[in-house]
């Protein structure tokens, strides 16, 4: 159900190499845009930091998360079984007043 939500970030490219390449190219050409490109790199790194801080579910390793997910699934299954057991208990047939 949660996997159905489309994630836009996946289309993004998280590589820093293109910007670094642009900086080096500007340096080769002695272009005045070097500082601008360097600022771009700094900004991208800062944005990446902020994005990482706000990303949900990454406070644990994938292995730990997987084990927690498995535990939750088992809990849901157990509780569903318990509910079914409660519901299927011997009920008294209360005679309806005629």
């Amino acid at each position, binding site marked *: 159900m949660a996997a159905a939500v489309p994630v836009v970030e996946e289309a993004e490219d998280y590589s820093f190499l293109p910007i670094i390449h642009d900086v080096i190219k500007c340096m080769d050409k002695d272009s005045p845009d070097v500082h601008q490109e360097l600022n771009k790199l700094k900004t991208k790194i800062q944005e990446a*930091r902020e994005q990482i801080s706000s990303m949900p579910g990454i*406070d644990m390793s*994938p292995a730990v998360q997987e084990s927690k997910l498995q535990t939750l699934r088992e809990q849901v299954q157990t509780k569903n079984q318990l509910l079914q057991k409660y519901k299927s208990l011997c009920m008294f047939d209360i005679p309806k007043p005629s």
Partner: protein
Amino acid sequence: MAAAAADKSTKERLLSTLDDLEVLSRELIEMLALSRSQKLPPPGEDTLILELLIQRDKEFQELMQTALEQGRVHQEMQSLEKEVEKRDSDIQQLQKQLKEAEHILATAVYQAKEKLKSIDKARKGSISSKEIIKYAHRISASNAVCAPLNWVPGDPRRPYPTDLEMRSGMLGNMSNMSTNGVNGHLPGDALAAGRLPDVLTPQYPWQSTDVSMGILPPHHGNDFGLEPPGHNKENEDDVEAMSTDSSSSSSDSD
């Protein structure tokens, strides 16, 4: 080292890789800037830094994909947690209902047991209907609960002892003896003898019938002396017989 990396959270690994990327990119740019200003060919070190930079960048991208996947898993976990909470509340509600039902049933069972006990007790101490009827006859024969059939207003007979009757009884004598025979109404010798003057002597229904008839108001001699059909001497004898039987049987049963 790999085990330690696996234990670390994805967030820590991402930030660490990002720091490495920042440091490596800065070093590479500084090295290139320095080599350009000094017009020297770049040493082989920059190749190593570049390789490290590419490696870290690849790691960072992989970690970001992992982080996105973990985000999806996190959403699933949240929905599962909500489901668990819902199930918990359902279970608690059911348990509450079952507790209430148990309480109601326990009360009902207790009351039923008490009822059974009382039924059992009643069965053990049961009295036959014959005994009850005999006892009823015995009570009614002495007019202790209702007036005689020929009773009319003005008739002094009562289903309870009158004041005079109480005084002439043993209790009256005992109280008189305790006051040393002093009484405002009667002389001491009469009290000591345990008798009353003729004026105060009570007329009992069993003493004489003509006296009781004499008490009736004038012109109504036999008007009120109506007896119900079937009431005759034989019936009276039957009642007397039954009352004596019941008294003997009740005393025997004791």
